[in-house]
């Protein structure tokens, strides 16, 4: 009978090793911020790290939530992270996270029918959705309700992630926010490569993380980031977007994309033909930041559907390779929001080639986005390994873990494998990359979820008492 029970109701603690304590896991990144409960396999809340600021006549007002990033008068899109994937705006960040957790993680709050807005008489003069945004904002809720919610933080430990190059000051701010602002009982901050290695189940691994703003190569040994091995460069999603932009501009005829929100309606046209669409009349000015945000979304779509990494075995810039790409690989058609569409053949490989070979960058890349030879992924890997003890190198190359959403571009792993075998012949190279795209995108979050639900981890948390005794610098002492 006991054996039957084991199937679902009894946790076999000796095998499983988990001990869930309902911790929050928060993984802020440049493009997306991820949050969820520890022990789950994917973050419940994934939201762009962008927020809207309404510059009204009086006080500017911040609204958090992807659904509020819409064309609107005086709306400015901002990001609380820097392009180094470090939290910059410490006034906004806690509010952003709070609203994320409250609105997406917790069950909807019971509100008296009088106040919940459903019974209000709709007003004609304003757009409904904007009204909703305002009413859901943090400023409208009463003090008592806020207190109630903060209590939830008081029961759950918080695990945060950080970039391996995060500054001491920033880490201290994190614990200060968690302890003072939210009243968490326990806190931990961990570097993303460590967590990725947890998610991949490898204590020693070479983590190749190509995210939105940065690409980084870091060696992890027994769950510790090796600081001398940390290598990063801007060859991430944003850089790829710039390459896409350069490709569009260099194309003949030049492609001038129109983002979705500006198109009222469109008519189908042949490939290469000029677009036939009617533009939407907004009646107010769109801020530059909003336009940039929308453009970035469009370029992301292009990246996802068209761009591919040249798989080799020869580099794309080798003479003759481009002809092979042109004649032997299928092209892809991409339709822009305005209805114009183009066939992309060999150039779609060119976009991502610069990640491996700096000479392959498109010639009309803006100067601030040009990368040097030291910033290509191949150089990053080589430099990373040269900062590691020789005895570890074979082990690391046998456990290469690929993570980050930008690695989802087709052919990335094949190319990486070829580059590595060319760089280190005679060594066994094994690349581990999650097949599930959600695991690849949220690698660090998943690792955090695993780590904070491990029974053996609960001795590591920095407790409130320890924080009160030692102050903020305890985070440097403990989270090594």
């Amino acid at each position, binding site marked *: 009978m006991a054996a039957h029970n084991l199937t679902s*109701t009894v946790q076999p603690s000796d095998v499983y090793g988990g*001990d869930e304590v309902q911790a929050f896991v928060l993984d802020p990144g440049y493009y997306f911020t991820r949050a969820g409960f520890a022990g789950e396999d994917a973050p419940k809340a994934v939201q762009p790290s962008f927020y809207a600021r309404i510059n009204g006549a009086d006080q500017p007002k911040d609204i958090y939530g992807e659904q509020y990033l819409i064309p609107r008068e005086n709306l400015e899109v901002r990001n609380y992270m820097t392009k180094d994937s470090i939290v910059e705006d410490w006034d906004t960040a806690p509010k952003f996270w709070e609203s994320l957790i409250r609105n997406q993680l917790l069950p909807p709050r019971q509100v008296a029918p009088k106040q919940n807005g459903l019974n209000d008489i709709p007003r004609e003069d304003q757009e409904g959705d904007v009204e909703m945004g305002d009413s859901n904002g943090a400023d409208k809720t009463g003090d008592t309700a806020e207190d109630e919610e903060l209590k939830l933080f008081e029961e759950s430990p918080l695990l945060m992630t950080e970039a391996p190059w995060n500054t001491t000051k920033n880490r201290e701010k994190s614990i200060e926010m968690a302890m003072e602002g939210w009243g968490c009982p326990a806190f931990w901050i961990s570097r993303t490569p460590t967590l990725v290695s947890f998610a991949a189940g490898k204590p020693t691994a070479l983590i190749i993380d190509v995210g939105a703003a940065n690409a980084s190569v870091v060696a992890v040994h*027994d769950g510790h980031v090796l600081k001398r091995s940390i290598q990063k460069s801007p060859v991430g999603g944003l850089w790829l977007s710039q390459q896409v932009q350069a490709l569009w501009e260099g194309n003949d005829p030049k492609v001038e994309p129109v983002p979705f929100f500006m198109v009222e309606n469109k008519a189908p046209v042949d490939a290469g033909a000029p677009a036939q669409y009617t533009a939407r009349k907004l009646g107010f000015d769109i801020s530059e930041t909003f336009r940039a945000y929308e453009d970035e979304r469009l370029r992301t779509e292009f990246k996802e559907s068209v761009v591919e990494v040249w798989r080799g075995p020869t580099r794309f810039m080798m003479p003759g390779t481009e002809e092979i790409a042109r004649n032997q690989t299928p092209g892809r058609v991409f339709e822009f929001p305005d209805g114009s569409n183009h066939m992309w053949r060999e150039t779609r490989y060119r976009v991502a080639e610069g990640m491996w070979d700096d000479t392959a960058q498109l010639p009309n890349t803006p100067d601030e986005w040009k990368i040097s030879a030291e910033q290509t992924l191949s150089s990053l890997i080589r430099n990373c390994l040269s900062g590691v003890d020789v005895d570890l190198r074979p082990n690391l190359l046998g456990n290469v873990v690929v993570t980050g959403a930008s690695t989802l571009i087709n052919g990335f792993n094949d190319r990486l494998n070829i580059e590595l075998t060319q760089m280190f012949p*005679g060594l066994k190279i094994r690349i581990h990359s999650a097949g599930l795209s959600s695991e690849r995108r949220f690698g660090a979050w998943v690792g955090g979820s695993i780590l904070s639900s491990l029974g053996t981890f*609960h001795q590591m948390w920095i*407790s409130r008492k320890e924080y009160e005794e030692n102050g903020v610098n305890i985070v440097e002492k403990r989270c090594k």
Partner: protein
Amino acid sequence: MTSLDARDVLGIPADGSSRPAKKVKISAPRQSLKGLAREVQSLGGNNPIAIVPATSTFKKRRLGSRKPAARWKLEPFKNSAREGDSSLVLRHWKRVGELGVPPPEEQPENGDGEPQELEDSAFAKFSVQVQVPQYSEDQYNSNLQNSDWTKEETDYLLHLSCDFDLRWSIIWDRYDYKPHALDENGDGMALVLTRKERDIDDLKARYYEVAAKMMAAQTPVTYMPPQQQHLHNVMANYSAEKERARRKFAADTLSRSKEEAKEEESLLLELKRIDSRAEQLNEQRKDLYDRLDYPATGEGDLAALKTSSGLQQLLATLSSVDRTKKNRKSIQENGTSPNVQTPVPESAGGYGGHGRRDSTVSGHGHRDSIGGDSAAATPTTSRAPAKKGSVSAQAAVTAAAATAAQQERRRLTDMEEIVYGVSHHDRLTGGATFRYEKINKLFSHKSGQQQQRITNVLAELGIPPRLQMPTGAVVSRFEGLIGHVNTLLDSRKLSDKLDAELKTEMAKKQHRLDMEERARKAAEEEEKKRKKEVGEEGNESAAAGEGEGEGSKDDDQKAQTGEKNGGNESASKATSEHQAGDAAPAGSDPPVKQEVVSRPGSSGQKRSVSVLSTVDDEKAVKRQKK
């Protein structure tokens, strides 16, 4: 309309009776399926009918056996493995009724308000810390001083080792020691105290140095348990240079080019192939030898059997094989395994003796086969060769069994042997003896003069002739020492003797040189005289000069063989003088001759030859001396 028409054409009645009939048919077998199943199947013949009788009833739920849903409770717990504080209380879901969670019936009795003993995390026991050496200020100053390392830096290193559980790659990665004596003295000091760039081997070397020294400080090396001793040895002998060289080599290996890697791979493959082929060849060869019962031929072995004493020995070993066989049989019957430590008389042949016996047995088997080979030549081994062959086969079998038994026995390492006091002896004398008697024995069979000399040497070395604490080890060392002293005395004696001989020889040589000088002068005078006398007889004088030269060359030979006078006066004069000079070396010849005579098995003719040869040698020596 269509169906009616069709029926009309086919002559089927229009009332549609065929359909209901079919329905009946379908339903009928479904109800009485059990009986009809075979009939229905058989209707199809080779093509079974594809009607699957479907049962529409679902599996019944076993409602009776279901237990009520498990109850779970959010329980607080603490973790005793937390170092800083144990105040952190986290909560997790626990099944009610499990360990640590009281069943619901008892809940009201305990009362919720009462402070209960918090459950400790089941994972606290997994928290393990590494042990790093600890030292006090005094210990550091007395033991651990190092010109390259300050105490602060050593502390820092040990702290890091503890933090990262001796994972050296991480320790080296995070090693960032900043000497902080700067704040007081200002900028001037900061320039002096520059940070040292240390590589991973420096850190390891320092740590092992500290660890080994602290280990030795706690317990002297000789008193450590073997494992600890081993650890101490490893740490004390850590060589940073060697490690550095190894690391460099590893780095070089990693930076090989593709061609090099390929070449090495192919070479390794080749090596493997060669190895396996050699192994195969050996196997085959062995197989062949086994089949041929190949007798080992050796000149020495045959020579040993040619003499009667050799044959006697062979006989003795043969009989001993028989005896050992019997012995082994009796041991097996008694059921005593060779593993059991037997008491003293048995152990003489049991533990240490086993190896010896095995070796004699195997050695014998070897020799035996030779005996079989040379049976015709030796009359004593006139027993039937067939029998001997069987004996050798048996011997081989027993030898194999013995070696197998030896392999079964657990091999003790050197360290363990010392610890358990196990020693190996070729032969044990019966009865107990005192160790000092053993020492006395060393002295007692020496002459008084020699004893005196030995004691003199010992006194010189500051060792009392009678040992104060004659433990086993000390006595064995003492014995060794006495042995060395003996050889020392012997060699000293020998060197004295040689010195004396050398002196006499030198004296002789001097004497002879003087004589020669004199003889030469005399000869010259003689010649002058003769020249004056003879004057014009040029031919003769030339011949005489020739003869003289010949004579001076071969004068020794002439002296030895008693050559007749060549008619030349001067030559005879010279020889007579030389004979006197050669008297002493000639005197030294007889012992050599005796030696040659005492050599057995050499014929008389041979002897004379050898005498001649020795004489020739002597001459050669003399010539060289000249």
